[in-house]
């Protein structure tokens, strides 16, 4: 019998115990996978946007619109390559489903966000169709929208000139992200600002917030400072920050969910550590005479330590891998059902954190009993002392 075979055979000496331990490890890692995915989701949207874009909002808050007259002034700031503006539309689909919809200038959007990809003629059509609208792949898929449809969308904020809040737009294109991470963010909808501004009751040439594309990301701080200085003490004071900080700020306002998730993870792992640790300790205690026999036969202290440690690593590893796989499957299921509202995915980041956790937990729970087995004195063990 090989050493590996020996370790596996030991696991099967008490099947109930092994299966039960395995199951609790699976549960712990299932939870770990899901919670870690939530954690990643809340930190997402910050890692990959980079600092090539700045966001200029009103200093009072982003709900206070900035006037369009600032547009040429912002374009003139050295270091700024392109500028777009967006106004939150407060879109509502059917009865009560919130949409992430913005009114934008199509050409400017295309220039500032090259990450959104769509055939050129779709971009052209978006610019030319006054009632045009484009939607991200995810949101289009979620509601089953097709290009060419006329979609009734309500606004919870802007009434049209006749006081009605029911708008309708022509879907002229569905855009994708340039890579997988951007693809996951394709839950936004863009409508044509020119039409929006003309048709809405308060149309007053206000832009909402500005998004500035920079030539050199290293100049972000200087450009932001220049802009904010320019409007200081005016009635339209601005606050400019990188897109990354802006997104992070938004996530932060949701409350410290990350902290909450870490607390739960801590509780889960502490419990797990104890369960598996105790099982290992017990199984070693039961096998003391056997271990002594092994040593008598000539196995070194080191290899006895190895056996016990390998057993712990094996059970945590198997349970961990199964648990993470279950979490991956469940994550896909959640995404299919909740769609854009809860874009969790158990991806390589979660898996790498999970693998580290497997290694750490396996070692910690195996080490104490393994050391005990290593230090065992043959005479005492055989005598049952």
């Amino acid at each position, binding site marked *: 019998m090989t050493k590996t075979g020996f370790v596996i055979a030991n696991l099967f000496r008490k099947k*109930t*115990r092994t299966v*039960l*331990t395995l*199951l*609790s490890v699976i*549960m*712990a890692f*299932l*939870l770990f996978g*899901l*919670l870690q995915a939530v954690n990643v989701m809340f930190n997402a949207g910050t890692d990959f946007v980079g600092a090539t874009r700045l966001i200029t909002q009103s*200093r*009072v*808050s*982003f*709900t*206070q619109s900035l006037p369009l007259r600032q547009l040429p002034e912002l374009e003139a700031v050295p270091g700024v390559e392109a500028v777009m503006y967006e106004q939150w539309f*407060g879109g509502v689909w059917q009865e009560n489903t919130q949409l992430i919809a913005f009114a934008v200038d199509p050409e400017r959007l295309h220039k500032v966000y090259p990450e959104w990809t769509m055939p050129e003629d779709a971009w052209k059509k978006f610019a030319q169709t006054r009632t045009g609208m484009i939607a991200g792949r995810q949101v289009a898929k979620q509601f089953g929208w097709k290009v060419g449809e006329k979609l009734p969308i*309500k606004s*919870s*904020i802007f*009434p049209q000139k006749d*006081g009605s*809040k029911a708008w309708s737009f022509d879907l002229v294109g569905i855009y994708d992200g340039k890579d997988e991470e951007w693809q996951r963010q394709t839950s936004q909808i863009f409508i044509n600002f020119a039409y929006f501004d003309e048709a809405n009751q*308060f149309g007053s040439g206000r832009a909402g917030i500005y998004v500035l594309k920079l030539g050199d990301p290293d100049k972000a701080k200087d450009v932001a400072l220049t802009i904010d200085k320019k409007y200081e*003490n*005016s*009635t*339209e*004071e601005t*606050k400019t*920050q990188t897109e990354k*900080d802006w997104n*992070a*700020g938004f996530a*932060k*306002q*949701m*409350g*410290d969910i990350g902290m*909450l998730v870490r*607390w*739960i993870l801590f*509780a*889960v792992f*502490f*419990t*797990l550590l*104890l*369960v598996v640790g*105790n*099982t290992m*300790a*017990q199984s070693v205690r039961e096998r003391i005479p056997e271990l002594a026999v092994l040593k008598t036969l000539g196995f070194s202290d080191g290899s006895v330590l190895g056996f016990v440690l390998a057993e712990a690593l094996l059970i945590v590893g198997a349970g961990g891998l199964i648990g993470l796989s279950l979490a991956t*499957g*469940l994550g896909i*299921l959640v995404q299919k*059902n909740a769609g854009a509202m809860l874009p969790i995915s158990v991806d390589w980041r979660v898996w790498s954190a999970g693998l580290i956790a497997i290694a750490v937990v396996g070692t910690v729970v195996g080490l104490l009993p393994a050391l005990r087995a290593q230090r065992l004195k043959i005479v005492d063990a055989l005598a049952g002392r």
Partner: protein
Amino acid sequence: MSQTLAITGINLKSVPERWGPSLVIVIGLAGVVAVFTALLAMAEGFSSALQASGRTDAAIIMRGGSSAELNSAFDRDSALLIKDGPGIRRGADGKPEAAAELIVITELLKKGETQTGSNMTLRGVEPASFTLRPKLKIVEGRMFQSGLRELVVGRGVQRQFEGADVGKTLRMRGSEWTVVGVFEAGDATDSELWADAEVAQTTFTRRGYSSVLAALDGADAIDKLKAGLSADPRLNVDVQTQQAYFSGQTKQFRTMISILAGVVTIIMGLGAIFAALNTMYAAVSARAREIATLRAIGFGAMPVTVSVLIEALVLALVGGVIGALIAYVLFNNVSLSTLSANFTQVVFSFRITPMLLLRGLAIALLIGFVGALVPAFQSAYSYRKTWAIVAVPLVAALVALVGVVTGMSAAGLLRTVFMVIVVTAIHSVIWYFAAGALLNWAARGNGNSTFVRLVLSLLAVVPGIVLFGPLLMVAMFRVIWSREQRNLTRDPLLEMSKAL
């Protein structure tokens, strides 16, 4: 009975001898209960912060179709028309008790934060706004003077945010505002900054208001007001009681937290059940000789079983109490903030109610029960007899566990169980036939070796299991979800805890 007591006594006294395995149950359950209680205490605190603000004898009037005050706006004339609407109580001076208010979002820095601002509600108010909120008291400094750029801030704002103390100034749109007072109301307004409505209008170049808050004159006044305002062609407004408005606002957050708490508790609970099973099996097998001796000298099977069960329940209870204590000490009344439907911060605190503690303990006991039931019976009965006895209580306890965790009513629970049974039955039938068809197909030739049969039946059954599990979860999720969606205003838990 006396037998049971005697053995239970011996068992409990010997727990310290085997503290290692016993600790697994205690700590495992402490973890489950602590996480469960803390999560739901958060939802509870948020609801109560907003619900406390809601009066049934006051109405809030917003522009039609606006789900939150932030989205609503109307001009001065409309505000005057609304205030004159029928059903609004008139004060001693004959004027309607109604206040037109303006909401503006402003940014403040959280204490300890240097860069990212948090959205705060700045409410432009009229004198009637104070009489309409009788609980609101200035607790520090003084009221703002009308016509001046002065602010009074809520207690929650002053505690959590930078620069909101009396005497400090805040800059907004190129002008300075002085904080002159702090108020306390014990509800959502504690997260707001208040200023004179007209000053706010000029500073933020707004011509109108966001909403009108009005005192209602009697029980049917809300319907009168609704009818009166909707009959007026110059207006397009939504009228609802203040309480309905606020409970609508808490819906989303509460749903999110209860689903999170449900999923986390159920998965953690399953883990704890397996751990408890492990411990109890170990405890029973370690005492096999002791139990055999007891039986030999005349103790019945039932007393032995019950004593093992009681031991597990006591350990579970201890774990549950420890978990609840941890949650209570660490979290009760700790304040935190999150975004409301208005896109602004609501400051609230964890609220651990007696009802929540009871639910936590119930979860601990049920998990202990489920974990110990089978090992306890197996210690004294044969395998087959054990399952015959425990099957029903085991399933009942599991269902009850789901009920306590999700907070479902008994009727809802029965509906779910029924649905699960139906779904299971349908799936079993489908897969039974699918497997049968596959086997028949395999047997049509002469090469129907046992091996082929085995592989094919596996092929037929495995997809069934793989598909069936997730489908079941989705089905349960749907039920819980739709239930949460329906319960906009009436929360059975809240009502039960009030009754307590």
